[in-house]
């Protein structure tokens, strides 16, 4: 039997496991795993599969900015309305309503600082309910989605030991 939790745990570890390998690791039939996976996708629990990349190793390093957004609400406008308006832009990697000193935490990906700055000043800041933006450019990424980029854990064990 492969439960949803087991399949999710495997995907979280490596979304590229074959159905067969997921089945072996959970002692389930491949068809069961396939069905569980389809169900997770149909219900929208699994929203997609993407590689975790270290952009600093690319020739053209992409630029990421984390932006604090402050907003004012009125009777006609809710957080959801503002979020929907901002999240639709393809350059928005993620958008979350958060507690604390500001309202939304926005992550923007672009090819250059110029592009990201232009996007924030031309598309985000002018939204009437947005009263303030504070942009933080990411300088170095050490860990992303649970993966340590500089994981110096070389295998220094003896090749054969009792």
């Amino acid at each position, binding site marked *: 039997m492969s439960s949803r939790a087991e399949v999710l745990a495997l995907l979280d570890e490596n979304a590229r496991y074959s159905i067969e390998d997921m089945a072996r*690791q959970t002692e389930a039939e491949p068809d069961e795993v396939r069905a569980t996976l389809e169900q997770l996708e149909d219900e929208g629990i699994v929203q997609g599969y993407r590689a975790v990349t270290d952009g600093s190793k690319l020739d053209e390093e992409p630029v990421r900015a984390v932006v604090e957004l402050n907003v004012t609400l009125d009777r006609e406008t809710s957080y959801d309305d503002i979020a929907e308006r901002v999240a639709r832009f393809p350059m928005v990697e993620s958008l979350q309503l958060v507690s604390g000193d500001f309202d939304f935490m926005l992550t923007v990906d672009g090819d250059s600082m110029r592009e990201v700055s232009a996007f924030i000043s031309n598309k985000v800041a002018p939204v009437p309910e947005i009263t303030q933006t504070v942009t933080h450019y990411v300088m170095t990424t050490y860990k992303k989605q649970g993966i340590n980029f500089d994981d110096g854990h070389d295998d220094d064990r*003896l090749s054969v030991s009792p």
Partner: protein
Amino acid sequence: MRAADRVDRVGPSGIRRFFELAEEREDVISLGVGEPDFAAPWAARDAAITALERGRTSYTANRGKRELRMAVADHVEQYGLAYDPDEEILVTAGASEAVDLAFRSFINPGDTVAVAQPCYVSYAPGVEFAGGEVLPVRTRRADEFKLTREVLRESGAAAAEMLVYCYPNNPTGATMTHEELAEVAAFAREHDIMVVSDEIYAALSYDHEHASIATLPGMRERTIVVNGFSKAYAMTGLRLGYALGPADGIGAMNRIHQYTMLSAPTTAQYAAIEALESCGDELAAMRAEYDRRRKLVLSRFEEMGIDCFRARGAFYAFPACPSGDADAFAEALLEETGVAMVPGTAFGAGGEGHLRVSYATGIDELKEALDRLERFVS
């Protein structure tokens, strides 16, 4: 320089020759490693660093820091074990020291020590260094390498003063339940045999809860339980284990320990306290990963038609050698495919015709090794 006779008598470990063969090659994928592939949980490493920064570099109490002994007492309650941190727990430099102390504390010259085999390579030499005579108790594939009343009787263990075994087992991955241990316990009581129960892999029992013989009636007073941090918390190099037993037994072991080791490594003790206090999630995550690998390995063996009983613990599977002699097979496999598996003969009686496959290896490497094995045997 001439070694003493008792040292001279003990040969080098059978695993050594295989290690040398594997070391000759660069591209080896090793399924021959007897320790975790994970690093110790960061919080435990951080606690060790902090202890060093604060200059905590003195000896501790002989028996180990009291805070650690108290944490150990709490930790082993999950197995139904209750030991007094002041009198009944001894922190040692690795579980290996605890095993050695148990041998030296309770074996008189000429005593017979029944050693359930196949097993970890240190027991028999340890018994001999302590002046005892080793009586191999050959467990069988037909019993899934569990210890039974029958194999104990057949091997002549009734005459032994001490019995030593390890479950979950290295090298077979076998485990034993309370019911199965009850047979062993009855035999030990009947023939007045003391038991050294190496439970270093207790945290890695996958199909049922770990069972300790010391929880069975009349056994606590005749059992030394050995456990430690190496396997569960991936802390092998920090060298920290512990022994649990009745006050007089632990007192005897501590007498040797205080004159020879003084105290277990202090830095490691700080790491271990943190491991017990806050690394339960990491332990669970490592355990879950071993379990997935175990299932992968067993499934692949089945698909390849390799006969392997269901390994239920530690991080080993113990398949029957697909063809011929296991030593020759392991050597040929290493030579032709670069995959290292240790022949069962390295682990004593009953290991012949089998291979120890360690799945303490990342899943990508594990899959590659199994692919190579599959091509090799087909």
